[in-house]
């Protein structure tokens, strides 16, 4: 029997997830030895028709990173679904929408107009905006349609497993690959990372006061951050309490609060609503009995962009998914 066939594909992503595969360092050689890479547009020269020519289910597993926001991406992930035994949503964008998902506070028209017409640095006197079909001398050229709504991978195709993170850390990637090769996978639909919250493994958790309160909200650039005190206790919003652990506390160890790239903890559906709830509960808790309502409003003013902050990585997978479209 030949080696299992593996594919990597990218949708709306930054390229960091591809980099994460390379970051496996010498482990990547073990992987390359054990599998047959049949499709990886960023690194190897395969074409769509090569995939089309394969039998259905011929690919053992496809790792797909990035959110889905164009017709081309829909077409490609549907094709890979048909050709693959397993689909792994690789990284935050495929898993919960990721940073590209913040575009769901806008729409395609607004985004294209801003990028191609309205920004100060744009020089576009004719006001040319990308079109799906354009007539040129030699005929017609086409571009994939750019959608209003950014979607997670599982909102477009059936997904078997999720590897969270922006980007997924090497140990979780290797763990997933090993489990797949050995056929020791958990139940379908599992997120291949711990169930518990980031705080649970964070080294600063023991510095978190028993009765945690936030006097006011501080933003990371406004204070000198103490690397040895829980960020919440310093007035900095940290998404750790509502976020799944397993990243190795990468941001915390770089002296920055968590922004939630691992998605919500096991039992939570709406990441943003959950963290909103915890922050609102502890903000100004100390003298809540005496503080007048206007003061509460002022405290809340400290959270400049609640939607963008609480759903920084998870807007497309939230209950509301996007801003109202008119």
């Amino acid at each position, binding site marked *: 029997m030949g080696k299992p066939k593996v594919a990597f594909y990218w949708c709306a992503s930054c390229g960091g997830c591809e980099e994460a595969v390379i970051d496996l360092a010498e482990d990547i050689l073990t992987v390359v030895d054990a599998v047959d890479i049949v499709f990886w547009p960023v690194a190897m020269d395969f074409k769509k028709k090569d995939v089309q020519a394969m039998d259905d289910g011929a690919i053992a597993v496809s790792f797909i990173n990035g959110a889905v926001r164009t017709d081309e991406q829909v077409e490609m992930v549907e094709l890979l679904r048909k050709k693959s035994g397993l689909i792994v949503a690789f990284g935050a964008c495929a898993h919960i929408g990721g940073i590209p998902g913040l575009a769901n*506070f806008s729409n395609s028209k607004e985004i294209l107009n801003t990028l191609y017409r309205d920004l100060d640095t744009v020089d576009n006197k004719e006001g040319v905006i990308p079109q799906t079909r354009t007539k040129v001398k030699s005929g017609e050229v086409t571009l994939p349609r750019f*959608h*209003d*709504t950014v979607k997670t991978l599982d909102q477009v195709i059936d997904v078997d497993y999720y590897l969270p993170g922006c980007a997924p850390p090497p140990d979780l990637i290797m763990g997933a690959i090993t489990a797949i090769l050995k056929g020791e996978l958990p139940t379908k639909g599992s997120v291949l990372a711990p169930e518990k919250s980031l705080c649970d493994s964070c080294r600063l958790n023991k510095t978190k006061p028993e009765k945690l309160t936030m006097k006011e909200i501080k933003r990371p650039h406004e204070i000198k951050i103490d690397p040895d005190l829980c960020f919440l206790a310093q007035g900095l919003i940290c998404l750790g309490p509502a976020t799944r652990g397993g990243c190795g506390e990468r941001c915390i160890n770089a002296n920055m609060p968590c922004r939630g790239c691992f998605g919500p903890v096991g039992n*939570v*559906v*709406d990441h*943003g*609503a*959950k963290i*909103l*709830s915890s*922050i*609102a*509960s502890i*903000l*100004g*808790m100390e003298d*809540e*009995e005496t503080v007048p*309502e206007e003061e*509460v*409003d002022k*405290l*809340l003013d400290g*959270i400049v*962009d*609640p*939607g*963008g902050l*609480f759903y920084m990585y998870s807007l497309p997978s939230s*209950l*509301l*998914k*996007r*801003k*109202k*479209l*008119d």
Partner: protein
Amino acid sequence: MKKDPKIIVFCCNWCSYAGADNAGVAKVQIKPHFRIIRTMCSSRIDPELIIEAFKKGAWGVLVLGCHPGDCHYKNGNYKTLRKVKLLKRMLAQFGIEDDRLRLDWVSSNEGEKFGKVVNKMIDDIEKLGPLDLSYAETEVE
């Protein structure tokens, strides 16, 4: 056909739900377009539950708790106040009208007030119409 508004009213067990009871006993006239969900304390109303109510078809959500200082668990309603205020700000970013979520305090002997607050909510929401969230599921061109 004109649809009737659907309002979810979250009531805490100790004051607001008793207030609703009081409204019943006092035969306060209230429009029928609301459903009460009782929880032990208003602070149990997680923002996630409020959003879920909207997702499931509520045109508006009314959260009722004990007056400040009267919460059965001492301080739950102060947390409710901050949660609802912050959630309102966030819902605005999603394009959801401010009037669709409201917080008020109703004590166990305020049946009159319960009726007034609920009727006002129903009237205001009727003007806004249903909250159509289907745009999140379909691709609009």
